[in-house]
């Protein structure tokens, strides 16, 4: 590359398909991921939509329990491994990490591209499993159903997740090394934006937990193929061992899904409150604490699986402990907004929605972490509502918040603000309408994963399904106006929100090498100034 071409935006630097598919530019790889992730989000969402359609009637409108089982398994597998786990890290994280650090790229750009290819291969294998007939095991693959009895395409689904896991590991490894080694001069650890700290904590979990899942799934595949193995009680194996190993990954994975969301919110709340982030170090260390304690709570998924009372009490206690750093974050965001000069732009609307929905999801988590309450609530819609408040109300809102916040930086275009706000509000309303009734249903005893149910649960299910329609419209809105903005949106300036952070000091969209001159960091992040009038009030 010659130096005369140095200021070409990354979008203009090559127009061929080849220049995209063989790129090592972290920004282009983020776009490749964005396209793939969006597809899987809507594919998984469509499955959920059909499930809500089925549950309108207590007899099940789809007419087949088998189809319903395959739908919720597909919904879970696609949403967990092909949307929630990767979503923020591989799109916003890929795009922003070098920009926020003042670096030119991630430490290992080719590994980054490889991780995208692995993800795509995994995605195609998963789609093959779906098209070939799907799996009926749920996303948790419990043995011995999966290893010995299920008739679905379990091995294909497992291979898909196995490959996607290596994509996660590659991404996590890249972020950790990049954050350690490629910070701009002056960018000390405590000068890093919280988003990067969150991504760092996320990456640590990805790197340490995903290999365990990979091995567990390999052992499961071995057992299914040869009809004999580690989790088979007939020869002295142990099905509970599978649950332990599975949740050793899958509970920390919950924090993989939500921690990047915390990071996004921590960027947006100060920017739209025009105030410094309240309690920076608390937020930072809360992220690390969540990553650490998150590894020690997996047993709370097995309270009724036949584990000892002692282990149940310990896991219950540890699960309560993880609520502390989560609460610290919520208080800090609210503290940041307190006496702030708040702008209700679309990213902020999503962020405020996140705080409310995540708090609801988090607090109901304490209900199910309590041993006695869990015996009543486990396997009911209460659990479904709880984790959807965290995953969808929390994580998906945070993803949309971040997408709207950095969209001008990523694409160089502004979206129509009124549509953005309409979308945020529609999603908030639709989400609550869909999932709040499920708390009630679960408390009343409606079990999850059932295709038909007693008739007296019908009104609340109808309400939930009606909410799903509103929610679907809410998700289609951004798909429409964000795509529209690519072609017709107004050109964005370098810093349309007046936000701090190195990514806003370079043009929108950024040039291929990110910064014409490597920046030197002298200030702490979030140095926002309030308008005079507000300060003297």
């Amino acid at each position, binding site marked *: 590359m010659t130096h005369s071409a140095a200021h070409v935006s990354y979008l203009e630097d090559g127009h061929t398909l080849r220049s995209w598919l063989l790129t090592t530019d972290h920004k282009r790889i983020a776009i490749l991921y964005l396209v793939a992730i969006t597809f899987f989000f809507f594919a998984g969402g469509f499955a959920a939509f059909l499930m809500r359609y089925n549950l309108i009637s207590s007899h099940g409108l789809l007419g087949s329990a088998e189809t319903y089982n395959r739908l919720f398994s597909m919904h879970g597998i696609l949403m967990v491994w092909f949307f929630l786990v990767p979503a923020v890290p591989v799109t916003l994280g890929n795009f922003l990490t*070098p920009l926020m650090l003042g*670096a*030119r*790229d*991630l*430490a*290992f*750009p080719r590994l980054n591209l490889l991780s995208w290819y692995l993800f795509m291969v995994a995605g195609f294998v998963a789609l093959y499993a779906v098209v070939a007939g799907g799996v009926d095991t749920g996303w948790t693959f419990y043995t011995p159903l999966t290893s010995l009895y299920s008739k679905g395409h379990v091995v294909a689904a497992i291979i898909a997740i196995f490959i996607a896991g290596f994509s996660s*590991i590659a991404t996590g*490894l890249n972020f*950790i*090394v990049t954050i*350690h*080694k*490629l910070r701009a001069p002056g960018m000390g650890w405590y000068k890093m934006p919280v988003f990067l700290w969150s991504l760092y904590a996320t990456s640590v979990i990805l*790197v*340490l*937990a*995903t*290999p*365990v899942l*990979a*091995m*567990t799934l*390999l*052992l499961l595949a*071995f*057992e299914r193929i*040869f*009809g*004999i*193995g*580690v989790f088979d009680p*007939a*020869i*002295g*194996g*142990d099905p509970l*061992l599978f649950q332990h*190993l599975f949740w050793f990954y899958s509970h920390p994975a919950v924090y993989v899904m939500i921690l990047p969301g915390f990071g996004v919110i921590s960027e947006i709340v100060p920017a739209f409150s025009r105030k410094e982030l309240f309690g920076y170090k608390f937020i930072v260390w809360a992220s690390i604490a969540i990553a650490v304690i998150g590894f020690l709570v997996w047993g709370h998924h097995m309270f009724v699986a036949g584990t000892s009372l002692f282990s149940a009490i310990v896991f219950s206690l540890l699960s309560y402990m993880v609520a502390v750093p989560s609460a610290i974050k919520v208080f800090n965001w609210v503290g940041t907004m307190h006496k702030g000069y708040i702008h209700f732009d679309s990213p902020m609307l999503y962020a405020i929605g996140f705080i409310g929905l995540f708090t609801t999801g988090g607090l109901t988590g304490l209900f199910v972490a309590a041993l006695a309450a869990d015996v009543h609530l486990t396997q009911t819609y209460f659990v479904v509502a709880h984790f959807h408040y965290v995953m969808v109300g929390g994580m998906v809102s945070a993803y949309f918040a971040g997408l709207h916040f950095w969209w001008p930086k990523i694409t160089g275009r502004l979206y129509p603000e009124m549509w953005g706000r309409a979308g945020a509000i529609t999603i908030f309303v639709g989400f609550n309408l869909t999932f709040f009734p499920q708390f009630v249903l679960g408390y009343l005893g409606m079990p999850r994963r059932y295709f038909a149910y007693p008739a007296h649960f019908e009104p609340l299910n109808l309400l939930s399904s009606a909410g799903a329609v509103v929610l679907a419209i809410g998700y289609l809105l951004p798909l429409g106006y964000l795509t529209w903005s690519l072609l017709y949106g107004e050109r964005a300036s370098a810093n349309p929100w007046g936000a701090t952070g190195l990514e806003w000091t370079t043009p929108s969209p950024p040039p291929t*090498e990110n910064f014409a001159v490597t920046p030197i960091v002298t200030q702490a992040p979030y140095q926002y100034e309030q308008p005079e009038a507000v300060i003297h009030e």
Partner: protein
Amino acid sequence: MSDAAAHEFQFSSAEHQRETAISGIWLFLATEALFFGPIFLAWIYARLADPSAFDAGGRQTELTIGVTNTALLIASSFAYSIGLACIEFGSRRGMVLWLLIAWALGAAFIGLKFGVEWRMDLEKGLFPGANFSIHGPSRSGAQLFFAFYFFSTALHGLHLLVGLALLAWIISKARQFTAERHNSVRVVGLYWTFIDIIWLILFPLIYLIGRAS
């Protein structure tokens, strides 16, 4: 161009790139340790449930081949370290020679393990399933032992094959390395030694514990 080739554009210097690559491989090895972790955990856990059956299985393994293979792998890593020391002193020929020896020792392991030992195991009817040759009360536990045995040795062998490919790659581009620039040699060396360490845990699990009691 020569300056640009010295390090990639996201690094400030060749030294910066070298340090970063070394951090990367260490972190990768950490993920590998966690990848093998569940097998070791499950293996030890399953043995605790039925030690005598596991030991009955363990006694059917080929100790002589196991010991020979352990020696081969350790010697191979030793040869690799000498190769690395050679390039540090600027001797490219020495490096190639010792890496070829390391490669040959690794290949000998693969040949012995899968060409000889696995064949003997299969002929003795030790693959778990209906034709499993150990009968009596130990039958089911011994099958579990051999499920672990075949699974973990296959996986370890796969890692060795990747290692052999990497060694061949290093040898093929030996001309690029100098006393100052031989980052890839160090990175591959860390991986090559790591495979030994995995084997050093598998070796007692397979061959020794069953014979000790």
